């Protein structure tokens, strides 16, 4: 059942909208207090938010901004309910919403808008179910976009070392936790250094891609590495942390001492005319990965060959 959060006063027409949406099989919760709703959104994520601008114009703007800027929430549809008389004065650049509904809208209109927005979100999303991050179609599209762009970009390929033995030792669900941790770390670091220009995608398993302007690429990689090494300790049992390694048995049944996961990043700089096709970026990344993987512990490598540069 799709969950809709309605942030509005608890009076008609909103109560009526809530009722008809409930009849259509949606689970609707009304929050007249935006403070409460703000907390609620993060503690239990809805499938859609309808928010009345008149409830608290400043806070509403803030809340929408915060939600839409979180790269792993960006696909959550948000519909703004507005007073039709205010429409000419609304600057849509300030509202990162997907659609709007006028205050006087009929129940039929509300239902249709909601349905349509949910459908649109589904069509656009190839998001990874584990991390909520965009998947391969979006990654491909995004890389194509930057190789044909005039600016200088960096495409970073991220993966984990010693992830398989970690899964073997602690089980898959612990492995999933580490993947989600890495996803959040990438999202927040990229967001911090690149803002809305940044991109993070999840190829699958422990493979991720990020795209940032070239001049912040080193910083992003360094910070991800440093923070990952710190955070990963929370996912290692205290006994193993004390010993300094994990113990697993290999196929021959021999006891092995294995370090816990570390992160490798291969960064491919992209500028206008360097690559024609997405596959060429991946090929350079594969070469870099070959070297990165030889270094123990968390590291990154950036391809500094610039001879072909105009």
């Amino acid at each position: 059942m799709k969950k809709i959060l309605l942030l509005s006063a608890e009076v008609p027409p909103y109560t009526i909208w809530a009722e008809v949406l409930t009849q259509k099989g949606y689970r609707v919760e009304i929050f007249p207090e935006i403070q409460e709703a703000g907390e609620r959104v993060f503690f239990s994520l809805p499938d859609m938010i309808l928010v009345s601008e008149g409830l608290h114009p400043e806070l509403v703007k803030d809340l929408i901004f915060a939600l839409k800027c979180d790269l792993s929430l960006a696909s959550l549809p948000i519909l703004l309910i507005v007073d039709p008389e205010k429409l000419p004065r609304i600057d849509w650049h300030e509202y990162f919403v997907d659609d709007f509904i006028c205050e006087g809208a009929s129940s039929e209109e509300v239902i249709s808008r909601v349905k349509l927005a949910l459908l649109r979100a589904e069509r656009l999303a190839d998001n990874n179910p584990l991390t909520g991050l965009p998947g391969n179609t979006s990654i491909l599209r995004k890389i194509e976009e930057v190789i044909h762009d005039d600016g200088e970009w960096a495409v970073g390929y991220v993966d984990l070392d010693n992830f398989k033995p970690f899964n073997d030792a602690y089980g898959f669900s612990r492995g999933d936790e580490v993947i989600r941790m890495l996803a959040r770390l990438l999202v927040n670091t990229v967001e911090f250094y690149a803002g809305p220009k940044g991109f993070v995608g999840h190829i699958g398993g422990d493979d991720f891609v990020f795209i940032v302007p070239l001049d912040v690429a080193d910083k992003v990689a360094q910070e991800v590495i440093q923070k990952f090494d710190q955070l990963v300790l929370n996912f290692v049992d205290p006994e193993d942390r004390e010993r300094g390694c994990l113990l697993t048995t290999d196929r021959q049944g021999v006891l092995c001492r294995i370090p816990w996961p570390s992160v490798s990043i291969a960064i491919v700089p992209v500028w206008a005319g360097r690559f024609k096709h997405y596959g060429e970026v991946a090929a350079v990344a594969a070469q870099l990965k070959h070297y990165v993987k030889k270094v123990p512990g968390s590291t990154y490598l950036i391809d500094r060959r610039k001879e072909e540069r105009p």
Partner: protein
Amino acid sequence: MIDDKRREVKKKLRTLKGLPTLPPIVAKLTRMIGDETVSAPQIAAVIERDQVLTSKVLRLVNSAFYGFPRRISTVSNAIVLLGFNVIRTLVITASIFEMMQSRDVGLWEHSLGVAAVSGILARDLGLENPEEVATAGLLHDLGKVVERASLVEDYKKIQEKVRNEGVTWREAEQEILHMDHAEIGGYLLNRWNLPERLVEPVASHHELKKARRFKVETAVVQLADILVRARGFGYSGDPWVPEPEEKALKLVGLDEKKLEVLLPQMEVKFYELKFFTEEIREALLEKNPAT
């Protein structure tokens, strides 16, 4: 035995909507968040000085949505994982105490002091993560904030009992709530999926034997609590300084000689904290001259 009072209190705790915090802290954070030159670590440093916001941030990062329950025990790690925008939203939607008493600031100062001293003791012992033990210290009396904010009638009764009968806060709690603030705090932190390394020291700080896995951390928090009370930094509900448990002193290895070395370090911390707490106290008085 079925205990109706305990059941009633626990039911209230389960439906708790969210804890309010000190208005000046929220105001300060809101100001910082609006200022583009302020960095995430600076904001973390202020959040770490408030037990309610800290518990909120930890609750969020350990919630099912993020998918690593009971893993994250420090604000700095939480902020890296939640990101600036989420922190921002938490702050702008934080609820505040409408009616403040200067007592509320006293409890909050007490908690800050205990956090600082817990950190010092943990570092001295060479524990692996002193920051985490300091966080447990910060949260140790969260149960008292809950009483103050959500069990208002009982809170008044406890207050009166302490005043009129000269009993300790804990004794009054036992009589009126049939449980103490340590149990309340532990119960909530556990419900909120916080790591056991935080839950246990909070839940057991007045009864070391209740701690199973994190005895040393629990002993650290107990002694920090006593040291801060003895020093008279802040106010935690009653004027009595409890006796430390033998076992706690032994686990921490705290004797006169060690105290002599550590006390000056603590004084430095108290001195630093005073700048912050006075700033908050003044801001509060400006708005609320009656308190």
